[in-house]
């Protein structure tokens, strides 16, 4: 008896000791300081053959275009081989910090504009000022908001590849039958179109999503009504301001007026559009290839101005360089060559439905004849989320939930938005304290 007890205690002690040692090992590997982007970039790469891993989230109709561009790049560059790793964006933003912290990050990648400051603050990505200089990229060639959002604490972290916004897709066959000749452009003509479509037998012409992209529609509308959803300076969310509430009220009214069925489940507004069950849907411009492939008779137009001024939610894909545990100057230079090449050849990327970020590329006719061309004309009315670290998570936790509740009719728009705005302000306050900005 005594013997077994002692040996049990001994075993426990041994186990604890082993655990403690392992723990020490773990924590010892944990912290590693931040490195700067490596050696001076010269514009080309002449070193030994390298293989670059390239992470991105182009899982949609944009994926094949990126694959094609990578293939072309590899064919042109003997000593650089880029292999891409594509995953869902939601996974991407979880995996990237984990991989980089563990020293297993990629060599180069693409992320969204509104994530750059978060990732920079978390020391996941490194500055690329020298690259912008070598490429002679400057704000003149980009929309100001896109270009400026890549800067965090006076350093540049992203090189914009494209901009992409919401667009309005409509079924041209339905429009013809309803006798609508032009895409609606404002609240009155939009409502008029919906009434005509209903009269033509399309019972629910505009399905209002309760999940993605409902919050992007909401942001667009908030901007249209003259509201600034996030006040970066004051760390405050303004969803519940009178102008902000007009946006969500309008979304809910689409359901209440019977233009949309209630409780639309995830993605079904898009599937319904592809099936010809609904006539209008607002979705990302990158869906054009998917819609082309479906054979649906459709056209794309800028989303109508429901509020007082033209505005639409937009985002931008940006190249970045992750922090490396052991920076390899060869790889970093090769990665920069890769970024430069893709940026210069971004006309081809327009085929994916995106709008090249560079004014010079657009001016050279990259968008000619493409379905997103009419949307690209509105590039100056595109609005972006402010470059505040942690804004992405704030949005998923607050605005997305509130928009969903309000469109479902679970809560009154005012209650849902007021709660969300309070929580968002709280989170922004916490983020500000945590990131020490």
């Amino acid at each position, binding site marked *: 008896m005594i013997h077994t007890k002692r040996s049990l205690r001994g075993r426990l002690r041994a186990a604890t000791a082993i655990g403690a040692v392992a723990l020490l090992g773990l924590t010892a590997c944990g912290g590693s300081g931040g490195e700067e982007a490596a050696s001076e970039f010269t514009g080309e790469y002449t070193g030994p053959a390298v293989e670059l891993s390239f992470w991105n989230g182009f899982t949609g109709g944009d994926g094949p275009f990126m694959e094609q561009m990578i293939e072309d790049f590899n064919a042109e560059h003997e000593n650089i081989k880029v292999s891409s790793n594509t995953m869902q964006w939601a996974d991407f933003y979880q995996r990237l910090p984990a991989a980089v912290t563990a020293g297993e990050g990629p060599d180069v990648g693409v992320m969204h504009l509104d994530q750059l400051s978060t990732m920079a603050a978390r020391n996941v990505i490194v500055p690329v000022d020298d690259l912008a200089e070598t490429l002679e990229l400057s704000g003149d060639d980009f929309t100001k908001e896109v270009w400026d959002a890549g800067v965090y604490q006076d350093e540049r972290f992203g090189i914009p590849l494209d901009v992409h916004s919401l667009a309005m897709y409509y079924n041209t066959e339905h429009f013809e039958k309803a006798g609508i000749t032009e895409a609606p452009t404002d609240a009155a003509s939009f409502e008029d179109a919906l009434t005509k479509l209903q009269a033509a037998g399309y019972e629910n012409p505009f399905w209002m999503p309760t999940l993605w992209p409902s919050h992007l529609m909401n942001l667009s509308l908030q901007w249209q009504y003259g509201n600034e959803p996030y006040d970066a300076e004051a760390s405050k969310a303004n969803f519940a301001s009178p102008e902000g509430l007009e946006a969500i009220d309008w979304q809910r009214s689409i359901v209440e007026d019977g233009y949309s069925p209630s409780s639309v*489940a*995830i993605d079904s507004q898009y599937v319904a559009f592809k099936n010809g069950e609904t006539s209008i849907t607002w979705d990302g411009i990158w869906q054009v290839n998917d819609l082309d492939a479906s054979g649906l008779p459709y056209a794309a137009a800028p989303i109508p101005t429901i509020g007082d001024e033209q505005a639409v939610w937009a985002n931008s894909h940006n190249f970045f360089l992750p922090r490396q545990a052991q920076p390899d100057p060869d790889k970093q230079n090769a990665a920069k060559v890769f970024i430069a090449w893709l940026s210069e050849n971004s006309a081809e990327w327009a085929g994916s439905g995106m709008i090249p970020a560079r004014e010079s590329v657009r001016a050279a006719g990259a968008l000619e004849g493409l379905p997103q061309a009419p949307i690209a004309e509105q590039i100056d009315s595109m609005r972006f989320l402010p470059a505040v670290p942690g804004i992405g998570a704030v949005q998923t936790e607050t605005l997305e939930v509130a928009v969903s509740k309000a469109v*479902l009719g679970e809560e009154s728009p005012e209650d849902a938005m007021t709660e969300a705005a309070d929580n968002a302000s709280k989170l922004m306050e*916490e983020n500000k304290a945590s990131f020490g900005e």
Partner: protein
Amino acid sequence: MTTLREREGGAPARKGAPRPSGTASPSREIRKQAAATPWLFLAPYLVLFIAFVLVPIVFGAWISLHTWDYTRPLKPFVGLENYAELFRSGSGQFTNFWGSMRATGIFTLFSVPLLLTIPLAVALLMAKKFPGRNFFRAIYFAPYVLGVAVVAVMWRYLLDNNIGLVNYYLGLVGLPNDIAWTTSTPAAWVALVGVTVWWTLGFNAVIYLAGLQDIPSELYEAARMDGASPWQQFVNVTLPGLRPVLSFVTLTTLIASVNMFGQSYLITQGGPGRETRTAIYQIADTGLRNFQMGSAAAMSYVLTLFLICLSLVVFWLFRERKDAR
């Protein structure tokens, strides 16, 4: 095993012979190795156990005492603040966490009884002899081999309230066809529990089936001789005979239900609002998406505490009773 081998031949007599203790040298050698041998046999498991269970448990507890964002160099020690926050109403985490615990509770409450009874009924049916029995056994088990992603994406489309097949067929037979299976409660709970039962009942059924086959047929024979009806046989022979299996199935089902994540993550995305966000969902979101590892670890420990209490109740319910026959 032993009886089988003895029957097959070999040297049963020599094997069974008593060894003169302390004289034969081979036996002493065996005893000398004995101290290290069990450890060596255990080593492969122990290494995994320590690396993937013990260390994470201790490390997790350590994390829960900090404001832990693994991408940040500073991880300040905050003592029990993360736990205190969970119990302070009005704090940032309070509503979300207890909302998710409530969701987990609802799911567990409705899924566990169904996952205990339906598979038992299926197992009783499958234990009977009838043509095509193996085919049906395979059919019932088949969904279990699918991953949660496959199951969830498939059902997401089937259950879609506007374009899904479920509502379409309900409409064909004259039932209400406008139930929002994934975007309203309580329909979402019916959907989540239903999908989970469909998906995992095969596993429990197989365990039950194995248990049923272990009950000696003599017992049924004796019961029949005593004039027991099928129901009496079930209550007095089958259920007692299944008790060890039953406690295992209850415990694993309970743990699996409390740990539900994939179904609500993929089918309802936690919606409507946050109503079907389970505890694991909330923990994953807090820790992995919002980088609040400390808070997420604290939530895990509170959830674990609940799970331990529940498990103790199950153990107590299925304990060997002293007055048992």
